[in-house]
């Protein structure tokens, strides 16, 4: 589904990613871990098409297409979703209105008829039930005045409504207390499916107790320095990121 080959990214005159390689198949959950400044959020944002980054080399193929050539909205319409580390506030714009516009932009792209208000409300109510989200959230302006936990839950809620093929969660656990973390993880787990891939970007192993990944990649200084199964995350938790530097793995 997603194949990243030797991806090199520059921003503000600095090399941030220095040759990333990995592959994500349908149905898999990958975790990308790494210390602050390792480039893991950059990777998430580059995949979503953030305009601040310059591609210095490498390729990214998504569903057989050159992802880097696609506009951010086309990536979204083709099923790529990113849950933001810092969800943005859009004052005055009602959450439901925004979601309806988003879902219909995607449906239009797929040559599906747009959902009318009734169909849309039925869909979001169903999703809100699954995720235990208060439907009152829908009538509030997008992320405005939301607590940190509400913002993150709103991201997961949007993900559930938009039903992406590839979901990238950018430090969705940051700033969450343990209860909120569990709710968010439950939501993500409910989305696991053989047709969907999920990439979880995180600093801490904590989230991975609840969203158990199939693969873990450790990013340091813009490179993946180690890949492994879920046990790799536990090692990191016990020994810290310094452990990898002390015992470099031969690539």
């Amino acid at each position, binding site marked *: 589904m997603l194949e990243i080959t030797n991806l090199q990214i520059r921003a503000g005159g600095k090399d941030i990613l220095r040759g990333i390689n990995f592959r994500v198949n349908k149905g898999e959950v990958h975790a990308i871990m790494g210390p602050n400044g390792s480039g893991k959020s950059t990777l998430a944002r580059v995949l979503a098409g953030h305009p601040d980054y310059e591609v210095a080399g490498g390729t990214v193929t998504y569903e057989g297409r050159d992802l880097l050539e696609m506009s951010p909205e086309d990536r979204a319409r083709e099923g790529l979703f990113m849950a933001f580390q810092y969800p943005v506030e859009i004052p005055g*714009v009602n959450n439901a209105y925004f979601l309806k516009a988003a879902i219909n932009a995607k449906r239009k792209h797929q040559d599906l008829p747009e959902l009318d208000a009734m169909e849309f409300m039925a869909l979001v109510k169903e999703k809100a039930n699954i995720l235990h989200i208060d439907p009152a959230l829908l009538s509030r302006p997008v992320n405005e005045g939301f607590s940190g936990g509400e913002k993150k839950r709103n991201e997961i809620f949007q993900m559930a409504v938009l039903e992406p093929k590839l979901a990238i969660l950018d430090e969705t656990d940051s700033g969450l207390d343990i209860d909120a973390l569990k709710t968010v993880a439950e939501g993500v787990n409910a989305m696991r499916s053989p047709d969907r891939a999920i990439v979880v970007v995180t600093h801490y192993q904590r989230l991975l107790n609840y969203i158990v990944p199939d693969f873990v990649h450790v990013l340091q200084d813009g490179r993946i320095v180690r890949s492994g199964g879920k046990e790799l995350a536990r090692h990191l938790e016990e020994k810290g990121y310094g452990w990898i530097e002390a015992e470099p793995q031969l690539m």
Partner: protein
Amino acid sequence: MSTSTETIEELATREYKYGFVTDVEAEEIPAGLNEDIIRLISAKKHEPEWLLEWRLKAYRVWLKMKEPTWHNLKINPIDYQKIIYYSAPKQKPSLKSLDEVDPEVRKTFEKLGIPIDEQKMLSGVAVDAVFDSVSVATTFKKQLADVGIIFCSFSEAVQHHPDLVKKYLGSVVPHTDNFYAALNSAVFTDGSFAYIPKGVRCPMELSTYFRINAKGSGQFERTLIVADEGAYVSYLEGCTAPMRDENQLHAAVVELVALDNATIKYSTIQNWYPGDHEGKGGIYNFVTKRGNCLGVNSKITWTQVETGSAITWKYPSCILQGDNSVGEFYSVATTNNMQQADTGTKMVHLGKNTRSTIVSKGISAGKGQNTYRGQVKIAKKAQGARNYSQCDSLLIGDKCGAHTFPYLEIGNASAKVEHEASTSKIGEDQIFYLRQRGLSAEDAVNMIVNGFCKDVFRELPMEFAVEAQKLLGISLEGSVG
């Protein structure tokens, strides 16, 4: 360059949709301004002597006045002798039915989405269509007359309802008020007149659609709306003009009078030609609008969406004379490219327990300059007066400007006056967030801007709120990159 910049720049080159010219034979008088021209205009309209005298009085005052300079605008000098003060499409002197309107003129309004054919009329909206200097058609007149409402062109009102006109003309905006109002008083040619009798709730929206067509002409219209005791009316005006390289002057005066327990809602969607990207051409929109809440418990609400014009200079105001009267001003003003706006309101509290609300949303993009200028004046006797003002500015890009000049004059210690102001920028992060959810860059900007303007849009009549949202989108095209 990001993809968003490319799409948006492509859109920016789209032309002003209403910029076409109608080929219609016009009756024009020579350019220039003097007492003979005023006599000629008055004669063409078969006006009574008192009105001609009033015009001449205004003209003589105007000659001694100077253009205001206190605003935050750069205005190219206007040669008042080069303006044509009267231009009208040639048509039969009196029309028996709307079907007799010149087909070209009728087509023009149809193209603008304002059908004046009896069969195609907008349901629930009565329209007075003003083309250059004259009103060419008014719809639903009969239905309105059945409940005693007078809705007609100003010229017609002068002929058929001279007492009402004489009583209220200049009663809110005197001919001495300011330079442009004095000029208008001397040379005004047409406009709309509405009178809602006692206790009548106007059953439909009244509206006037102003169209400037002729080259080198100015439009000087005059609108007068009187709501008698307990009456209610909602009125809306829209404006467009062809694309021309030279600036054209539009200097209108609007007067509203609300008697005891009467309510007037006055909404404007202003979309005059804004000029091109370098600032060539465009309408100078210098307008004096004022309402007098003359009676107790009366209410006047101004709602404006100002997206067009090269320069906008207007301050729809309320004089809160009656006790417990209410004045409201809701405004969205956008300036893109080289547009300039200096707009706001005046709330003059004279009566006891008078209340006013001001909500101003300024949006600047391109090299646009947007100024909010508002005055709240609480007179000595205005016991218990209250005002709330909120002025928000939104900046798109880094070459535009937003300025806020609130003036407060409090003469009574019991007054409560609140003022809030904010300035924000549309963030790249907001746009990216919405694009990540599948919205195009321009839809993203539209959504953000519409959210910003929501408090104002919800004051507009339903069908026009939709129109206003679309218009805002068009006028801001090309503003993000």
